[in-house]
Structure formats: C-alpha cells, structure tokens
C-alpha cells in the first residue's frame, strides 16, 4: 500500500512543479497583428472615461458555447475599455435561461441570434421566419422593443446550421451539392446534433418533415469529433465553425430549401441599461462588431476550438488587432 501512495506523491510533486513553472512562464499566444493601430483609424480606438466607473456594474451575459463566450468577452472588454465596471455572467445556459435573466435584470445584455429569438421567445414558427437577414432582424427588434429591450444592429455574419460530413463520406455519396440530393440518394446516413435538436421543429423534427430525413439521430455535441470518430455520417455544424475551412477534410451541403432561418447576432440590451451607459457606449458596442463577417468569426472560433486558447484572450486579441484597444 505504501509504494502506491509513494508513486502518487511523486506524481503530485511533478504536478506542483508544473503548476509552479506555468505560473512563472509566459503563455501569451503570439498571433502577430498587422501594424500600427493608432494613426489611420481616426476615432476607432476606445478611450477610457473615468466617469463611467461610477455608473454601476454592468452585467454582460452569454449562452454556453464557444462563439457566445467570445462575443460576451468582446462586449465586456469593450465596456471595460471605456472604464465601466463589468460583471461577466457568461455560460448562462440555454436561450430560455439567458432571456429570463435579461428580462429580470440579472444581466443587462447578451448576444442572441435573430432566428433563435423569433422561434424561441416570440413563438414564430420556423417556416414563418423571414428568410432575409434584415427582415428577420427588424422583426426581432420590434418584438424585443415590446419587452423594453433594444436589439442593437445585427452582425454581418450569421451562424446558421450547415449539414456537414467528412470528405470521404461526400465522395462515397458522389458529392451531392444540396441537402435534398444528399438525403434523397443516401437515406441511411446518420446525423449527429446537440441533444436539444432531437425534439425541435427547427432542427431534427423539421429535417424529417421538410427534407424527408430518414436516418438515425445521434445525440451528441461532438460535431466534427463525431465525424472523425465515425460516430455519425453527418453532423449539424454551425456556419462559423472553423473546421468548415478545411475543405480537404470536410464537405458541407447547401440548404436549398432554405429550411434554417437567418441567425445573425444582435446584442439585446435593456433600455434602462442603454440609458445608463449612454449613447456613445452603445455606439461602441455596435462599432466593434462591424467587421465581423463569417470569416472573422470563424477565425475567432478557430483560435478557441482548435488552438484551445481562452475566449478572454481571443477577445482581447481581436479588439487589439482591429485597432479598438492598445
């Protein structure tokens, strides 16, 4: 018995050593920004206003996956750069929880997808959601306004569902371009999706009824890990997933029936909070997301998901590289 414990002690000592070394070491990921951010951007840089510190603590929330963490951090750090005191409540969970927190005032703002807001909060049926991104945003904005929440301008990027598979699976299926073709000629393929998908009309249930999907559903949020591990043939990926850029490894299929609604991000902020922080702060929150197209978001996701960096660091690097902060 003692020798086992001795081995464990050695392992513990090694671990303590590692912790100690890591604490002393420099673990800043080097992403290499382009150049001078100061001069040419005229007004882009965010300046600290000491008056903001006394306006109370702003609670920034987010849901519980990578993209949400990154966005939450970006908004939080934007406010902090202006001198506001910010409390982060990232990882709130599902949109129901997040929306409840926003309505009750537990948080002051969080980023939501237009499509999700319409189907989950405002009871619009998936088929009735406007297919145009701006129309969907305007409708969501109007509904949010009824609840004393301002939906800020939508992001350029949208993060909708994309059905993807490995290149090998695509080759075996003769490389169909659209989802209709994919399902029609290959009824036995299984698809993996996050657990909630199983019982959602804007997910599996809709795929079955609208696209005639007949295969098995694998309840898992592994996405590309599922594809790699052979756990499923297809997966419900997000259009901002970094893996989609690896076109020699994975293939994606076009949503030809436009089944999935638009999913642009809009930062929902309580009206009283918007007043409290002032128009300039609100404008800054919109400014930082101006250049967020799919490629940019995919890059940010890539840094977190594939390089395993922390969302906080990725958000900070983003603000720096875009010239908003030093």
């Amino acid at each position, binding site marked *: *018995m003692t020798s*086992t414990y001795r081995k464990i002690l050695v392992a513990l000592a090694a671990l303590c050593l590692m912790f100690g070394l890591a604490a002393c070491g420099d673990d800043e990921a080097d992403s290499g920004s382009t150049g001078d951010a100061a001069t040419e951007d005229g007004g882009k840089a965010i300046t600290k206003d000491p008056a903001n510190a006394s306006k109370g603590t702003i609670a920034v929330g987010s849901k519980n996956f990578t993209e949400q963490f990154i966005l939450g951090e970006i908004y939080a750090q934007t406010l902090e750069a202006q001198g506001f005191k910010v409390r982060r409540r990232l990882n709130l*969970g*599902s*949109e*129901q*929880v997040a929306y409840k927190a926003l309505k009750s005032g537990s948080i002051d703002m969080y980023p939501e997808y237009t499509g999700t807001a319409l*189907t*989950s909060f405002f*009871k619009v*049926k998936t088929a009735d959601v406007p297919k145009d991104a701006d129309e969907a945003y305007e409708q969501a904005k109007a509904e949010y306004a009824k609840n004393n929440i301002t939906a800020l301008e939508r992001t350029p990027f949208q993060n909708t569902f994309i059905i993807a598979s490995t290149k090998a699976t695509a080759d075996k299926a003769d490389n169909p371009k659209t989802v209709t073709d994919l399902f029609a000629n290959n009824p036995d393929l299984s698809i993996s999706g996050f*657990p*909630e998908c*199983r*019982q*959602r*009309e804007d997910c599996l*249930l809709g795929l079955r009824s609208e696209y005639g999907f007949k295969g098995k559903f*694998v*309840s*898992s949020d*592994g996405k590309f*890990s*599922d594809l790699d*591990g*052979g*756990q499923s043939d297809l997966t419900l990926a997000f259009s901002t997933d970094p893996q989609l850029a690896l076109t020699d490894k994975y293939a994606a299929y076009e949503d030809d029936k436009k089944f999935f609604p638009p999913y642009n991000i809009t930062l929902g902020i309580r009206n009283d909070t918007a007043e409290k922080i002032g128009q300039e702060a609100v404008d800054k929150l919109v400014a930082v997301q101006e250049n967020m197209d799919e490629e940019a978001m995919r890059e940010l996701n890539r840094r977190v998901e594939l390089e395993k960096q922390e969302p906080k660091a990725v958000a900070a690097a983003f603000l720096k590289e875009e010239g908003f902060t030093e």
Partner: protein
Amino acid sequence: MIAPGLAFLGDFGEAIKFIFQERESVSGGVQIGGIPELAGFTATHMYVSLAALAIAAVLAIPLALWLGHLGRGDFIATATSNVGRAVPSLALLAFFISFVGLGYTNVIAVLVLLAIPPLITNTYVGVRQVDRDTVDAARGQGLTGMEIVRKIELPLALPSIFAGMRTSAVNVVATATIAPLANVQTLGEPIITPQTYGFVGQLGASILVAVITLLVDFLFARLQRAVTPEGVKLARPAKARRRFSFPTKRSPKQA
C-alpha cells in the same frame, strides 16, 4: 416565507404533473413528458444498469471469491476500493466519450467499471470473515478448494456480497443518469435538455431518478437481509471488520 413555500410546492406539483401528463415542449411544437415517454427513458435506464451490474458481478465475484479463499487479495481489495472511490463518474464517462466514442457499449463499459470495486471489496472481505476453523474442518473432511468455496465460503459470504451489490446497484443507477451525454437516452435526457423539457422536466426526471434509486436500494437491502442467516447476523466478528479501513456494509457512492 409563505410565497417561496408555495412556489416550492408549485414546482414540485408541476414536476409531478409532468411525469403523468404530456405537455408542449418549452421550445414549442412537440409533445413531451407523460408516462409513455418517461417509461421509455426508464426502460433504457434500467437496461443499461442491469446489464452493467450483471456483467460486473460475473467478472468480479468469482475472482474475489477465489482471492478471498486463497487469502491473497488484501492489496487488490484495498487498492480497487481506493481507486474506485477516487475516480469521479463524470470524468470516467468523459474519458470514454473522448477516447472510445458514444453509444450503449461505451456507457455499459463505464458502468461496469464503476460497479466492480464495491463487488470485489465486499466479496473479498465477506470470504475473509468466514471463520477459519470452519474452513479448516471442511478441509479436514476432504473437501477440495472449489467445494469449500461453493459450499462454505460463498454461502457465508452472501450477506457481504449482497451488500456490495447494493452499493454497486445504487452507484450504477445513479451514474446512468448522465448517460445521455453519450447518446444513450436514460432518465437523464430531460435533465440535460432543459430547452425542450424546461426546469419542470428536469425536476420531474430528478424525482423519478431519486425514487427509482431508493427502490433499488430498498430492494437490495431486503435481498441482503434475506440471505443473512440469523446466526451469522449475531456472530459476525468485529475483528475482521476493523482490519480493513472501509465499512463492509456501505461503500461510497459514485454519483
């Protein structure tokens, strides 16, 4: 004080209604809850639990019986008990998900691993507690090793073995709750999909899980009592129990 009190009852009342009555999901458009759906989850839950328990019993009990008979398994018994206690069920499941994959085989493998330590430990200790004089007498009468195990040590160790099975059963049924993380829809499914089932669904599933686990515990406690002869109940020596630093009746839970 009254308002939260009533609210508290309200949630539970709603949860019980969820168990018996179908209702629309939180995200809308589909019926969830009610007996048929929950019975399905329960069936899956019990299936993986029973399968794992059976496999673990077949693997662990004969091995531990033999080790106990030989008196050689002290280290193994304590080591498995120590390691088995220290590994969190969630960590083990996540490990299997990331290294092996999803599905029934995976989940049952994890549950088997969690069920084995209490079985080994309790079976071993049960056999060691058998009075050495009885065993020697039997040997003197010409019984072979196998016969001694079968006719003397096993029957006398049964109470301890069933105590181990009780612990393992509770651990396994409890851990099966997080099986949905690996694509096996047990009663944990409503718990990890609150967007569909809502907090009411999570609560309802939790009530069911608690009730079922308590029933399993009660059942095995009864079985253990049934296999304990009166004489053994009175005469178990305290000495053997103290040599090992774990209680023979209840080993720690995993989930």
